[in-house]
């Protein structure tokens, strides 16, 4: 026989040990009868779930604090903008008044008209 024939002979199928099919069927029946095992019934899965929740809480807390800081910053900027706008308006009014007075008295310039 050549190598390929020898291999076919050597690698021929073998019967499994006695009672193999019965053992498989018994395990299959047990598997089918066993109540469905939900993931939370496994201690490791419970532990993993708790750890995941803890990480989520920490991350959510950090995110919330960051969001709060960002909101405060935006509000401060807005307030500064409003205050700046008001100041500018007031300054324009003062200039306008001063200019009107100067026109009435024949004076030109003034402390606010330096530019």
């Amino acid at each position, binding site marked *: 026989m050549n190598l390929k024939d020898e291999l076919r002979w050597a690698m021929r199928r073998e019967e*499994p040990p006695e009672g193999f099919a019965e053992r498989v069927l018994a395990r299959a029946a047990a598997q089918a009868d066993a109540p469905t095992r939900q993931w939370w019934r496994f201690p490791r899965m419970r532990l993993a779930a708790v750890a995941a929740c803890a990480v989520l809480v920490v991350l959510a807390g950090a995110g919330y604090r960051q969001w709060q800081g960002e909101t405060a910053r935006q509000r401060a900027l807005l307030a500064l903008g409003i205050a700046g706008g008001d100041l500018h308006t007031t300054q324009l009014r003062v200039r306008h008044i001063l200019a009107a007075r100067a026109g009435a008295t024949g004076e030109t310039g003034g402390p606010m008209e330096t530019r």
Partner: protein
Amino acid sequence: MAELTVETAAQNPRTEAPLHFGDLVREHQSMVYSLVWHCLRDRAVAEEVAQDVFLELHRRLGSIESPAHAQHWLRRTAVHRSIDEIRRRRFRPWVALDRVPEPAAPARGGDPLLADRLRRLVAALPEEARMLVVLRFQEELEWSEICEILELPLGTAKSRLHRALLTLREKLGAGRQRSGEARP
């Protein structure tokens, strides 16, 4: 919950006749067991892995379309479970390829000693080459099926099997030569 007995049957909507799990086990047990056994060379582990393959089939029986599909599924799953088992356990055969003892007697066809030696040599091959030899010489599959199961291109599969056969031939030839030299 549907009543499940030892003779669990599943009716796939695409099939005409129900598949009986017990029948599938009895019909394909030698194929699945032999695939795993030739790959792992440990009867206890082979039985455990083969049982797991059938239990997986039991869970998926509803998606199996035909007896031919079941056979294909079992063969493919057995091969991949065997490879997983080798990788998971860093499973090595009892001895390395170069330490396999030489046969005491010259080889003859159908010789149980030669067959045992060949099985050991095959089990000492790298995992993919091992599965190629098993699928080609145990199952006598076509190349297309082998490539599909092992997810290998045709050229790669052929060259790996060729290399594996060269190794086996070399090893076997060396053994025969030594046996011849030992004789007066």
